[in-house]
């Protein structure tokens, strides 16, 4: 196959243009997903949390998780900084040394899945094991999970955990916002258990209003920021705090871009690359193959024509030669006849036998 450099670059250019053009439609749009309408959420207010761990207990009960090593009413557990694990969807941590002297110490922070509006875990999952329900929960389907744990790497809040001690069917474990319960109209386990409504459950839009109202009613009690309103493109779980969020261990460096958007540009190229490039390359291959075929056929035809021509020419030559030979033979015969006639009396038989033999041999040599 023969592709010139110029042609190759031309195709490459066409391919690139195709890829980028397909992409711009999304990347340049100002579309922002602000959550499903009427989706639910929870507002955690750390000025109301008393650190009783009832939410942990409620979560454990409704999700039928294994009993913890130390009972839930053992508050000395709070002396160590903990995180969620495969057997614990939510934990409460205590923060003693907070800067603001106005605030009565300690403060507590509840940790669980924040149920992003556009979840990073879902965008990282290539088998679509994660999905955002219309009610707001980010749920996980173990039946399709291949255990790659990309979700665990993708989550900016370090929430999904893995059943490392399960040898056969390990699952990714995380808070489900009690999705089965909220579908039935029940409260999430932790919310139901909270004695002080440090957890407020409701429509996310309502919760934002409730949170703003609290800030404006008690401006010196709260930091004027609702965590989760815009973090990572917004989360269904919202937070109010008496101190800057980083002082209670929450990341303030996340930005407001939803995780999927960070990778959308590159990933949106994937279908195009996967879809177009094989077709394109096959096309290029087919085209060059076809050319080759055509060229081959043409050559064959040309050769055949040439052979034909040669044959015809040869035949013509042969004919003329035969004719010439025949002529010569005739001439010789005539001469011989003449001679014989002249030598009438002399013996004529010897010469007339030899000459016809030679004339028969010649055409066969030419044809080969």
């Amino acid at each position, binding site marked *: 196959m023969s592709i010139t450099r110029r042609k190759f670059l031309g195709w490459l250019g066409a391919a690139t243009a195709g890829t980028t053009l397909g992409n711009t439609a999304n990347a340049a749009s100002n579309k922002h997903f602000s959550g499903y309408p009427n989706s639910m959420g929870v507002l955690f207010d750390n000025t*109301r949390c*008393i*650190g*009783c761990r009832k939410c942990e207990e409620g979560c454990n009960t409704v999700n039928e998780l294994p009993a913890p090593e130390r009972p839930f009413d053992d*508050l000395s557990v709070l002396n160590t900084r903990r995180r969620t694990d495969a057997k614990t969807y939510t934990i409460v941590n205590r923060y003693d040394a907070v800067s603001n002297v106005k605030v*009565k110490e300690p403060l507590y922070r509840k940790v669980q899945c924040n149920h992003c509006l556009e979840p990073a875990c879902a965008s990282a999952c290539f088998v679509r094991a994660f999905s955002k329900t219309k009610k707001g929960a980010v749920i996980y389907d173990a039946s399709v999970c291949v255990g790659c744990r990309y979700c665990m790497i993708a989550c900016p809040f370090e929430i999904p955990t893995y059943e490392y001690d399960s040898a056969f069917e390990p699952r990714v474990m995380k808070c489900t916002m009690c999705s089965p319960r909220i579908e039935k109209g029940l*409260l999430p386990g932790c*919310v139901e258990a*909270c*004695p*002080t*409504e440090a957890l*407020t*459950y*409701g*429509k996310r839009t*309502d*919760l934002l*209003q*409730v949170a703003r*109202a*609290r800030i404006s*009613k*008690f*401006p*010196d009690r709260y930091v004027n920021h609702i965590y989760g309103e815009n973090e990572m493109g917004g989360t269904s779980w919202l937070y109010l705090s008496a101190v800057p969020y980083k002082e209670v261990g929450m990341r303030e460096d996340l930005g407001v871009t939803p995780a999927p958007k960070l990778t959308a540009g590159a990933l949106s190229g994937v279908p195009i690359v996967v879809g177009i490039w094989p077709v394109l390359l096959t096309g290029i291959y087919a085209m060059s193959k076809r050319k080759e075929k055509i060229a081959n056929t043409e050559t064959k035809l040309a050769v055949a024509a040439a052979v034909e021509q040669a044959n015809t020419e040869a035949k013509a030559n042969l004919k003329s030669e035969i004719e010439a030979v025949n002529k010569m033979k005739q001439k010789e015969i005539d001469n011989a006849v003449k001679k014989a006639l002249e030598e009438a009396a002399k013996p004529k038989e010897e010469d007339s036998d030899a000459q016809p033999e030679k004339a028969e041999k010649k055409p066969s040599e030419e044809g080969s």
Partner: protein
Amino acid sequence: MKKVKARLSVTGSVLVILIVTICLTCSGNYGAKGPSESEMQQRADIIRINSMQKFGKLERPAVPFLHQKHTEAVAKKNKDCTACHLTQKDRLVFKYMRLEDSTQQAVMDVYHANCVACHQQTAAANEKSGPVVCGECHQERTGLVSVWQPMGMDKSLHYRHSKAQNEKCERCHHQYDEVTKKLFYAKGQEGTCRYCHQDVTEENRISLQQASHLECINCHSQTLAKFDDAGPITCGGCHDPAQQKLIERLKVVPRMQRNQPDTVFVRASKSGIKDPKQATRMKMVPFNHQSHEEYSDTCRVCHHANLNACVQCHTLQGTKEGKYVTLEASMHRLNVNMSCSGCHEINQRAPECAGCHVSIAKTRQQDPSACQTCHMADVVQVAESLQQTDEKELAAMYLAAREPMTDMYAASDIPENVEIKALKNQYEPVKLPHRKIIKTLSNNIKNSKLVAYFHADKNTLCQACHHHSPAAQKPPNCASCHGRPFDERDPSKPGLMAAYHRQCMDCHDAMGLEKPVATNCVACHPKKS
């Protein structure tokens, strides 16, 4: 063979000792961890010598100088302040060994020559001495923590001074004459030092720091020379929080006299109150100046810029001198202690008030009827009455006409205990000592005049818990409003469980009650038997 063994063991032990020593010294020298806060020396006398700063950027770190340490060292040598401070007109100048900062080189030389010379002499006399090498004085990190606290003159201290000075106010108070460029004393024009002496030195006035040290220490040291007893002359004497507490405070301070009114109408215009057209349309506020003097440590709390009437700067429309804070704002602004409402609100943060007030939003907007607690005197009436009566008397009359609310329900009308059975599936009913709680709350506040005038009704106290419903002797049940939590139609209203818990816990928290602990369920909810 034995010899070899012995030699080996000796070498071994020497090596071990060497290694240990090296490790110890290394960790001493190179340990990255600085001293923790508790290990750091706490001092109130740290002065950063940065006199060179006015000549440009410092070439080396400013020198942390421990003044008290030097005062003591100098005293040991039987020398006094003049060992380091020059005098001018019999008064010490609080610059080191010079009267003024002339040039960069000169100031630098003063320190380098004199400090180092003294340190060298002391060292030569085999006494404990200070550094002579650059880096030992010019240090960034010192391992010292300053506990320095600002010093102020409260009413008690002021009275003790004026008594000691035989009420010769001119000993301290003065004013500046622009024309003669001299200080003079004007009787009846005294103000606090801070009205003129600000944080930094301005053209014709030195900074408060300079002024106070110059005046206070000079006077104290002169007094000390004549008598046994005088005010502090050391840094810690005024600025160490521990020593500040030792300063005698009079329980009853005789009233300071500076032509201030006893009772007065709050002026709404500069032109006076006799002309009703000049005044505001609002009812006028008779103000008990005398009693408010008692509530404050200094005049400065309210009179933050001068001792004039508020309206001189804060007019109805606002003026440039008043930073365009209107009269209305100057009286009602929250979160500042110089406005009426601001100070009253700050008072509500006291534990005996905070229990209830913690859950009441801090907004300026109150029930309009509350305005009349202060705004009680009709403008026209006041103008007419002033034809016959003195303003002071009239204001006093209005104030006396107020009736402090001291009424309370009879104990028999207050339920003694209230049983809360909302969580009866999990626990025994909660026995709320209802009467005891009310008794404690009302006892806590019974001596407060602020309460007496602002808790307008005998139901007011009840309404901290029995809120958002008409005040009544038998208010509605909590469950009448608080039911299922997270009602979509009213998402900000707590459910019954949270309403109870937050009402109790927030109040206990704000009052500083440590028991029962919020997380100890069975302290309130007895276990089910």
